[in-house]
């Protein structure tokens, strides 16, 4: 084979190789993504199970109370504010829509059902994710990259039991309570805009609220809140705990990206879970 023939062959082989890579790229990327997703799902499941098992160790109560204060009590003000304005907007929009059909008497039904069944659990979960979830990821992530978690392990303090379990339990306690607060303040917000500002009948509003809400609506809302609590706590803790293993960055940048991922992923999963849970509870 002459040198020119060799060069021609090499160029052709290279061209075929590039074409092959181009054609297989979508499959390779999808495959890698799928494998990574399965890995993370497996790891997250084990992470959650171990953290749940370690809830029952001694000396957990004070840590759980601290976390309930941080995740729950400290989020109360922002939840009240968001729920008030959500209820008010709902009251305002619904009143103007209902008045066209002369059905402004159903304002209480619309506001109460929208809030208790959907908006209450979902918006509460998203607000806690933004306020407490991001902080959990950042805090655990910093503890990881500054070797504080390794320090716990060297002191024979179980890092999952010490850092993660109390946060999961505190989320499961806080989410339904904050959802209930959201629902109540939201209904009050609907009253403020619909009745006090737009002139709907106050008696009809509260009668409709009471008449349309069933116990199942409330319990379904709480079930959703618990599901969202597990999702938010798991995603935020997992992202922080494994911030040092991110492939896209290291150090402080990894903590920043982990926090962003935690918030985005939590919000997306909340909405997906909302659809699934609603379908199952119907």
């Amino acid at each position, binding site marked *: 084979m002459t040198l020119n023939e060799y060069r021609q062959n090499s160029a052709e082989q290279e061209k075929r190789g590039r074409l092959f890579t181009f054609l297989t790229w979508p499959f390779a990327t999808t495959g890698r993504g799928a494998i990574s997703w399965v890995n993370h799902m497996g790891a997250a499941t084990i992470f959650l199970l171990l953290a749940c098992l370690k809830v029952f160790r001694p*000396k957990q109560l004070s840590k759980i109370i601290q976390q309930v204060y941080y995740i729950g009590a400290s989020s109360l003000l922002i939840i009240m504010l968001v729920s008030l304005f959500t209820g008010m907007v709902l009251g305002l929009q619904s009143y103007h829509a209902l008045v066209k059909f002369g059905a402004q008497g159903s304002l209480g039904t619309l506001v109460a059902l929208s809030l208790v069944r959907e908006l209450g659990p979902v918006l509460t979960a998203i607000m806690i994710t933004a306020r407490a979830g991001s902080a959990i990821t950042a*805090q655990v992530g910093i*503890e990881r990259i*500054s*070797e*504080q978690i*390794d*320090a716990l*392990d*060297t*002191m*024979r*303090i179980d890092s999952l039991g*010490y850092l993660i379990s109390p946060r999961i339990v505190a989320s499961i306690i806080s989410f339904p309570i904050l959802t209930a607060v959201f629902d109540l303040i939201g209904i009050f917000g609907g009253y403020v805009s619909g009745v006090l500002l737009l002139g709907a009948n106050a008696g009809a509003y509260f009668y409709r609220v009471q008449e349309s809400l069933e116990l199942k609506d409330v319990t379904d809302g709480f079930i959703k809140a618990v599901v969202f609590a597990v999702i938010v706590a798991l995603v935020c803790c997992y992202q922080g705990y494994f911030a040092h293993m991110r492939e896209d960055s290291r150090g402080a940048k990894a903590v920043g990206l982990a926090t962003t991922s935690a918030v985005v992923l939590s919000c997306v999963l909340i909405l997906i879970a909302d659809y699934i849970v609603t379908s199952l509870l119907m």
Partner: protein
Amino acid sequence: MDTPLIEFKDVTKRFGPRTVLDRVSLQIYEGQVTTIIGLSGAGKSVLIKHIIGLLKPDEGRILIRGKPINEMDKNEMDACLAGMSYMFQDNALFDSMTVYENVALPLRETTNLDKAEIDHRVMDRIEQTELGDAIHKYPSEISGGMQKRVALARALVTDPRIVLFDEPTSGQDPIRKNAILGMIAEYQRRFGFTAILVSHEIPDVYFISNRILALYQQKIVFQGTPEELEHFEHPFKDEVIQSLEGLQQELTSLYSKRQFKVRYYAQLRRDTSEKSYVVAVFTLEGMDDVIAALGHEAAQEAIRCMSVLINKHFGAVGGFSARRGMNEFMTVLPYSDIAEAEDILKDFIEDFRGQGIQDISARALKRAASGGCVEFSIRVGLAQGQPIAGIDSVIESAKEQQKEVARLRCDS
């Protein structure tokens, strides 16, 4: 020799394609201070993280008291780890906890001691590490040196049998470096634990170490005493020790031991004339009392002042000096005899008694963690030698001739 407390047998560790430890074998013995030296990034921290179980070897075995770690059941492993403490290079203090809470954490979480007992033990360690004024402060509110001491207090609060120190002096000034090393040596003597240090503070670590392990190109190339390391012939010595060990010791500004020997060989051993030289050995006595009364930093300041004074008198007449131990110095006066040396020493003693000892005391008190009475003395010995003979016997002879020449008393 006894069964090693910790033994590595052909341990290999890789991170991806990079081999960090390659068939490393080593022994660490109980009750000793063992220091692992090597260049930055050589894998020293990786090596000691295997001991405490933070990392697992890819190949090879790690034995504790002759039993492989991987064959231990959970209870045995827990019992092993219960006796170990680890002081991280960057301290790994919990920044959301106060100094007191950081030190108390291992006792609160891993023991069933009552609050009063925990408080007693924590305050003991806090006072021993001179952190009394900082107990309610957060790590971000205290200096780097104090953070090191908090990490040290936390590592010692559980009364461990083995303490691993990962570069305990990194980022410290020379006085604090030596103060921390002095503190480790003192606690090791007092509590009898086995200390394993990772350091590249050469030669400072020699003064406190019983054994040195040299990590070079992924392998342990030397295990032995600091004295044996001086006679060790290997590229490690040229590449690592000479690059880490400055020509002068950082704290005292005197020659390092190696440079001292180089100067001795260059100036005296090659000289075929029969001129003699004199060796003076100085010892600061009572440093333990200074540490107890004023703290480690004050003691290191006293050592630094002492070296300045020695250099002032003996350096001016062509002498060269080095630090020989924690509180010991040696000086060579080339081409001198004992009579000339005694004249120079007389001036030194007069200066030392007149101004020097007061200076040392005043400077030490400035660095003191707490006010107190300080009492110490200096012993000096002289011996004459011939270049044809070795210097070691002359140094020993000077040490035997030592007598007290000055003393600072509390009432003076």
